[in-house]
């Protein structure tokens, strides 16, 4: 399992390859790898120049590890990778990445969705949209984010 909380960009291809290589090195015999990459979406009217992501150093790693441990316990996974960035990001840049590996694809897909649902509302990150005119808007959590967790209850 690898958890990375970082401000720098990451290379999706490199991370995917390293994840896959780690599986074959460990003899995990995984038949499925699922990766998900979250990307900064621009605002509909194009006035968002950047997204500032704040986090709670210490708790962030701890919360993500807890979520990943829970995924490992619920599904039969060979490995889990979570990378989440913070700091100032521009539209089109990747924010985060999740990779899961399992013997068959169902577990890897479900676990990746579980990780995404929990990272959204249980990992201490806060997004602020920075607009052209200098204003900043904190992104509000949606009811649907919380409801998404019910599915895993």
């Amino acid at each position, binding site marked *: 399992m690898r958890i990375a909380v970082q401000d720098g960009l990451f290379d999706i291809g490199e991370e995917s390859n390293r994840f896959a290589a780690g599986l074959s090195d460990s003899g995990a015999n995984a038949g499925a790898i699922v990766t998900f990459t*979250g990307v900064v979406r621009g605002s509909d009217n194009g006035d968002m120049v950047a997204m500032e992501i*704040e986090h*709670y150093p*210490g*708790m962030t790693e*701890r*919360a993500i590890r807890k979520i990943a441990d829970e995924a490992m316990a619920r599904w039969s996974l060979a490995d889990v990778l979570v990378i*989440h960035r913070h700091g100032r990001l521009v539209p089109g840049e990747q*924010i*985060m990445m999740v990779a899961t590996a399992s013997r068959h694809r169902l577990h890897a897909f479900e676990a990746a969705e579980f990780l*995404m649902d929990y*990272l*959204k*509302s*249980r*990992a*201490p*990150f*806060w*997004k*602020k949209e920075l607009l052209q005119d200098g204003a900043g808007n*904190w*992104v*509000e*959590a949606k009811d649907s*984010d*919380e409801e998404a967790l019910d599915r895993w209850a």
Partner: protein
Amino acid sequence: MDILYFAWVRERIGLPKERVETSAATVRELVAELSAREDRYAVAFSDLSALRVALDQDLSDFDAPLDGVREVAFFPPMTGG
């Protein structure tokens, strides 16, 4: 005890972190103590349903006891992912 604020809670209170001496038994009592200090706290804590709290870096709730807690953090619902 250290108190940390994040996102708009940090902006409203005007600082990211402070150390307070308190005899509050629960988070709710600590919030009442802080709110009585100055308006900026009262404003930030006016609607607790819009806030989350973590005790020693674990999510908790406003009725949780503060016994032995070293770090309390207040923040809005998280928006990761």
